[in-house]
């Protein structure tokens, strides 16, 4: 399993591009926001956490269709499915973690920098980055289901996003409310944050099982 993780990470890094493009996309989305809402620094500071979340959500959807696509193209996906029929969910889990490590973690790391653009306070930036760190794996796990379902489709990328976005609403809600909780004294930080962590753990179980089932279906 560790070998698979290292292999996937190495492949992802060597393919390069992907993570960088996602970070650039994130940057572009955040850069557009002030043009849409005006350069009012107070307003930007208030909506900053929400904008960072939306940007990260959209950017992390970008690379999702490549989660299984590359493996399918060179045939190693069939090998993975054949090799350990019963452990396929674990394999998928490891692949998701590797994908998150390569293409989503850079987004989380870029978030503090982009938070500065939004005129956010250090504390708010820290809280938002923390919620992103905890919440984005859930997006990857949900996305894995979509990627697995659409793996046989030639142009599945957009379809995956359409199917996945409604399912990510809980992650977005609790991520943003936790981020606000840290900013605003009247709102709580810990309850939404803990629920966010619970959602991530829940999808860490559900996502790999469902996508393993989908992958088996597409292989037959």
């Amino acid at each position, binding site marked *: 399993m560790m070998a698979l993780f290292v292999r996937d990470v190495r492949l992802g890094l060597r393919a390069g591009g992907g993570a960088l493009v996602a970070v650039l996309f994130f940057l572009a989305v955040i850069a557009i926001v002030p043009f849409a809402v005006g350069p009012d620094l107070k307003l930007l500071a208030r909506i900053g956490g929400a904008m960072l979340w939306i940007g990260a959500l959209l950017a992390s959807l970008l690379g999702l269709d490549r989660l299984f696509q590359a493996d399918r193209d060179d045939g190693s996906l069939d090998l993975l499915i054949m090799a350990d029929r019963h452990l396929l969910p674990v394999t998928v889990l490891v692949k998701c973690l590797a994908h998150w490590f390569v293409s989503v973690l850079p987004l989380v790391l870029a978030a503090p920098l982009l938070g500065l653009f939004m005129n956010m306070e250090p504390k708010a930036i820290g809280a938002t980055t923390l919620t992103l760190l905890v919440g984005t794996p859930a997006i990857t796990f949900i996305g894995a289901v*979509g990627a697995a379902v659409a793996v*046989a489709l030639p142009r599945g990328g957009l*379809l995956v996003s*359409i199917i996945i976005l*409604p*399912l990510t609403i*809980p992650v977005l809600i609790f991520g943003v409310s936790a981020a606000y909780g840290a900013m605003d004294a009247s709102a709580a930080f810990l309850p*939404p944050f803990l629920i966010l962590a619970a959602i991530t753990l829940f999808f860490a179980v*559900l996502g790999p099982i469902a996508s393993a089932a*989908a992958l088996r279906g597409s292989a037959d």
Partner: protein
Amino acid sequence: MNSAASRSGRWVDIANPTRFLDLAGRLLPWLAGLSTLALVAGLWMSFQAPDDYQQGSTVKIMFIHVPFAWLSMMCYTIMTLAALGTLVWRHPLADVSAKAAAPIGAVFTALALITGSLWGKPMWGTWWVWDARLTSVFVLFLMYLGIIALNRAMDDAAKAARATAIITLVGFINIPIIKFSVDWWNTLHQPASVLRAGGSTIDGSMLRPLLVMALGFTLLFFTLHVMAMRNEIWRRRITAMRRIAARGAERGRAE
């Protein structure tokens, strides 16, 4: 109701599509007739119903809005059961049922949203509020559309069935989470203008037409569902027959 009861009773019998076609042919006139009857009676009763002292004539929208909302949820439940049938029992009709139900459910959900919006405008003064219930139904609508899009995007019927079934099941597991999170989100930013419509107590003069309308629309749903399932079975047979015909023609040429 009718077909659901008989479906669970003689599960194995109807597994055979030909038997299903027979049964559908016998059942459909009754279903269609009964649903027309119930809908006409329900319409008449709802026009006879008195206006609400608070909401005026707009309360009449309730008689169609509530059945649509209820059917949008029931349809998704049926699709989830069908998805289980596809994945666990590999039931040949489950996939047909899910595929036929999706567009009908999407139409009912859209109607629930439209009528709700038309009810909200005179009552709340706005077409749309980000109320917990409205938002959940809207998400449900998006999921219907995603499922339909996914199913249409795949050529291979068997693969499309499995893929759609998995997404349907994941969506079904997700619905309580979405509902809960939307409720939470809504208590955080509670809009002040929302007027809690009505109370939990509905007068009998309102309840009776509502129940008849709900029954009528439920029967209508099953009529349409069985018809769409029959169409889908025919469509698949025709594709299979065309393939056989093409193969036969090819063989004839080769000899």
